[in-house]
Structure formats: C-alpha cells, structure tokens
C-alpha cells in the first residue's frame, strides 16, 4: 500500500504522474421536469496504485461520477463540462470506439449486485474469457481459458476448474462477486472502479472480499476508486477520500486526517450518525433530508440542514478551503484558513 502523501507541494510535483484527473466534471440529466445537475463541478485525482474512497448518501452523485468516467451514462444523462484525463488521455472527447479500447482493459468496474451484472445464460468461465479475448487479439481460446482459471484461483474461487463451467445462479453471492473481480482484473487494469462492491454481501463475506481487493491492489499496483456509503469500508480500505453531497465534493483529504480531524459539518454529522460498537450514546441526527436536486437551496447546499449555518451560507456558495495541507473543505467556517 502507498503511504498517503501529506504536502501539497509534493502533490503538485506529482501532477504528471496522476492516473486519473477529473476536473470540474459536470453531468446533467435533462428531464421533463428540468435539468438535474447530478455531478456539479467535481474534481477528483487518483494516483497510480492509490485507493480512493468516494462517500455519500443516495443521490449525492457518487455513482454518476463513476458512470461518467466509464462512459456508461444513459439518456437523458450527459457529460456537459469538464475533463476526465486518464493516463494523459482525455476521455470525454474520445470517440466511442477508442474509448472501448480503454474500458475493461485499462479501467475496469465492479458493481454492487453481481447477479444482475453477470449473464445468467452463459457460464461464468466463458464470460470472463470473452473479456480477455476482446482485449487480447491473437490469444487462442485455450490460452484464454487457462488465464481465466488462473484468475479464478487468484481471487480465491475453490475448484476453479469446475466453477469455470458453472452458471451464475449456481454460485453464492460472495463467489459471484469474486467472479466479477476476476473479470475486472483479467486484463490487468490500471484503475478499478468499485461501486458498492460489498453492500449486498454478509459481513464475514464482505471482510473476505475487501481483504482480497486489498491484496490484489498491493500485488498488482492497481488503483481503486471505491464508491460506498459505508464509512467503515473507507476507513479500512482507502488512503484518501472525497465526501460528496448533492453533486458536489464537500470535503477531501487523507483518511487518517479526516477521521481524526473532520471539518465539514456534513461529514461530521455523517460520522456521528453511524452507531459504533463501543458507546451507546444517543446518535446524532442530521436534521431534515437530502434536497430535491431540481430545487437546490440557494447558497451552500447543505445549509438548511447545517447546525452552523450563517446568513452568508444562504446567499453564497462556499469555495474549497484548505485548513491543513491536502485537506479541503467546502464550508465558510474555514474561509480564513486560505482559499484553494
């Protein structure tokens, strides 16, 4: 695992090395009721081999950010602003054909529900083999099959040979997710996007899958974008995190820093809303609920629910401020600490 870097100066010198650089990404859904800015000016960086968490509640835009990177947005959704630089290549302006060469090969994705993302009428082995053959022209079927069985063994599927010719419904949820990971890792991607990979699994199986992902990440040096609502998963798996709310990044920094020194009232509220296994103190409640994306509040999007809101918050949208190096917060409480 890479150690999180702390100095911003160091970060800047590493700029050229960035694996994924999302700048001011805007993804909009043009619905009959109006425009929904699902992703509203999001900037995210991921270095090679780094594990980064994107956290937020339903509708905060975390999955849509991933879908925009993957180019999997469905109508009426559209990326209509910003840049996605992957390995120095600009993805947003690329043709669909060029993009397909990168997807599945250099960027792979795993989803929450492995049953719905696998084809129920094809054996799991064939499905993974297909992914391999698609991106490796000239590979024979036998070679590919061998590689698939190796991949199955790598992700800890017992009886890999036998499982190769089984259908998805014959596998348990944990095994299916392992197949998905094997498929994603088959081509040796540089970036793995994992959208709630353990949410549908039991805790002991979740622990196994996270352990496996961590192991693969360390061995293969794959960067991971972990999209989740579970702060525990982030604490365990990621080196840095971005907290999103209503389409914007509210706070970002290293996991160590944010869990010790949380700044944004929303992140703070989220953390205090999770029952931990040590105290029985009354849980904190963030009042109200997530705003309607069609009618966002003026000013800061979180201010109607915020305990610290000031008159200014209702007028003006806060920028990202940097209370400590590498730790960014979108809140006026930290305005004096310098602007980005």
């Amino acid at each position: 695992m890479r150690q999180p870097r702390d100095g911003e100066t160091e970060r800047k010198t590493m700029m050229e090395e960035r694996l994924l650089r999302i700048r001011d990404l805007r993804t909009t859904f043009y619905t009959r009721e109006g425009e929904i800015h699902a992703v509203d000016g999001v900037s995210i960086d991921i270095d090679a081999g780094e594990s980064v968490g994107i956290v937020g509640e339903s509708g905060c835009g975390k999955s849509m950010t991933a879908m925009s990177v993957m180019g999997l947005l469905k109508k009426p959704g559209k990326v209509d602003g910003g840049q996605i630089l992957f390995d120095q290549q600009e993805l947003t302006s690329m043709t669909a054909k060029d993009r397909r060469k990168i997807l599945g090969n250099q960027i792979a994705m795993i989803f929450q529900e492995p049953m719905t993302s696998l084809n129920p009428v094809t054996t799991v082995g064939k499905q993974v083999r297909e992914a391999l053959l698609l991106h490796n022209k000239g590979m024979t079927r036998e070679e590919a099959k061998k590689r698939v069985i190796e991949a199955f063994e790598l992700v800890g599927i017992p009886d890999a040979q036998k499982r190769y010719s089984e259908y998805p419904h014959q596998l348990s949820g944990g095994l299916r997710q392992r197949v998905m990971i094997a498929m994603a890792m088959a081509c040796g991607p540089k970036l793995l996007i994992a959208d709630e990979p353990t949410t549908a699994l039991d805790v002991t199986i979740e622990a196994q899958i996270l352990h496996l992902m961590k192991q693969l990440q360390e061995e293969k040096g794959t960067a991971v974008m972990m999209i989740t609502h579970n702060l525990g998963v982030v604490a365990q798996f990621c080196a840095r995190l971005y907290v999103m709310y209503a389409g914007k990044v509210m706070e970002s920094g290293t996991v160590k820093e944010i869990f010790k020194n949380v700044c944004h009232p929303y992140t703070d509220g989220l953390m205090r809303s999770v029952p931990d296994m040590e105290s029985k103190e009354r849980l904190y409640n963030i009042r109200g609920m997530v705003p309607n994306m069609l009618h966002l509040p003026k000013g800061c999007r979180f201010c109607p629910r915020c305990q610290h809101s000031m008159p200014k918050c209702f007028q003006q949208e806060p920028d990202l401020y940097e209370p400590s190096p590498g730790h960014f917060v979108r809140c006026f409480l930290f305005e004096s600490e310098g602007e980005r």
Partner: protein
Amino acid sequence: MSEKEVLLLTRDLTKEYKLKNSFGISKKQVVHAVSGVSIEIYKGETLSLVGESGCGKSTLGRMMMRLIEPTDGQILFEGKDITIYSDKQMSQVYKKIQMIFQDPYASLDPRMKVRDLIGEPLVTHKVYGTKEETEARVKELMGMVGIRPELIDRYPHQFSGGQRQRIGIARALALKPKLIVCDEPVSALDVSIQSQILNLLKDLQQEFDLTYLFISHDLGVVHYISDRICVMFLGKVCEIGETGEIYKKPMHPYTRFLLQAVPSMDPEKAQKREQILAGEIPSAVNPPSGCRFRTRCPYAEEICGEKEPELKEYGKRKVACHFPLEG
C-alpha cells in the same frame, strides 16, 4: 430489567421446508430454516436477532407472529400457547404484536392514502365508532412519528424512504401493541435517515413501554438499540445474552468472527485487522453434523462433528459450543 417478566417465549421452535421439484413433487429434501430455538423475550426490552443471510432470523421473527406456521414447537405469548390459536383468536393477538418491515417501498399499498394506511388497523378492529375519532387518532400517530398531520391525504410515493418508514411505524403503533417485531427496519435507509429512525424507535419504546424484537445484520445498529442479543447461525442459536457483555467478550467463535468482520470506523485500527473467517455459509439442506458452524470454525475438533453442542449457561448468557472462548 429488574422484574424480568417474560412476554413471549418459544420452545423448540422449528421450521422446515420440503423441497419440491418443478412438478410439485417432494424431493425428500428438507431445508432446515430454524431448528429447535428456545428463547425468551422479556417485557420492555429490545432483543436482537443477529446473523448472516440464511441464518433463520427473519423466519424466526415471522414465526413468532405466526406469519409463518412453525413445523414444530410452541410459542407462548403472555403465558398462552398461541400456536394452537384459530385465525379469529390470532386477530386478537395481533392487537398486541405488530411488525415493521424492511422495505418501506414495498410494505405500503401505493393506492392508499396515509389516512387509510395508518387508519386501517383501527377500522379493522373497530377501535373507534366514528370517522372523526379515527382521523384524530391517525393525526396523533403521525405527530408521534414526526410527520406533519396536514399530509394525511397524501400517497406513499409522495414521501421519501425515511418518511415511509415513519408511516410504517405509525401503522404498527396504531393499536397500542406490546411487542413490535422489527425486521431490518433501517437496512434500506441512508445513514443520516437511519439514525433518525433508530432514535425515534428508542423514544417510542420509552414513551409507550414497548418491547422490540429487532432483526438485523448490522452489528453497529444492533449494539445501539438492543439490551440483549441472540446470535444465530444456520437456524440455531449460537450465543444469547446481554449486548455489552457479548460485544466485549464473545464466547462463541462465530460471534467473535462476526464482530471482527465489521469494518471499524477508526482507520488505524481497521487497517490492521486480525483474523478473517474463511469459507461460505453451508447449505441449510444438508447442514454439517454436530455443530453447524464447525466447517468454518478454526477451533473445531472431532467431538464437534459428532455431538451437537447444547446451549449451556455461563453466568448471564448461554452459549452453544464445546470449546467456548475465554474472554
């Protein structure tokens, strides 16, 4: 709990499902969903059933309300055996036992207004003589769960997930029950809404002296809400006792692995985790002989395969293991 009055208890409660092939002919195979569970629920407490999918926690919870008919065993509610009750007699029991479901989208009829959703149990049991009285009670219930009474004529789709769960809770409260079976009531909700509902459940319990049977797989939530927990694995009770004690010193190996598997909120603790439980949950059609957990248990010895461990008392808790852990 000072008085320890038993509200509901089960004796050797068992549920088995016969497997059938696609022509409806029995295959002589049996799914052992719940096998011989005997537990007590005390008045005023929250007892949580915890375990992974397929451990039988939901089946057990639903059996206690006879939403699922037990294959064998007894359920005693307030000292009376309700397993032999007729439907008519059961409807009287349902005034005292109510249920809250997991999915607030599926458990409310989309064509009914809040007025009718919450008012339905009141009308069915003819609690009030006039419509005005029923409406007043519905509004009172809405207030209790934090929904503005003006919204009485809205439909479920006009509410968010958290609000719908509140409507479900109001509906369960309508008949002033003694016991509420909560089947994963917060699993479908976002973290910030989850904490609101948990606090609401706690407040209501205090106000109306309710007893909860809380079914959940989320060990953090369970720790927060329950007085006692009952850990289940493949239809059997592994360990049952006071929450704090079990979380501090689990005695059954499965309980310990379950607790360790939860990702900690402290990054420094979380990133160096000790042991991970290997393997998958065995099939309930052919559960392992002896102790059902033995195929995954690193401490299993010969006897575990031969003899099924009984639930033995250790101080205030009961553990079903031949080799219970010492703290």
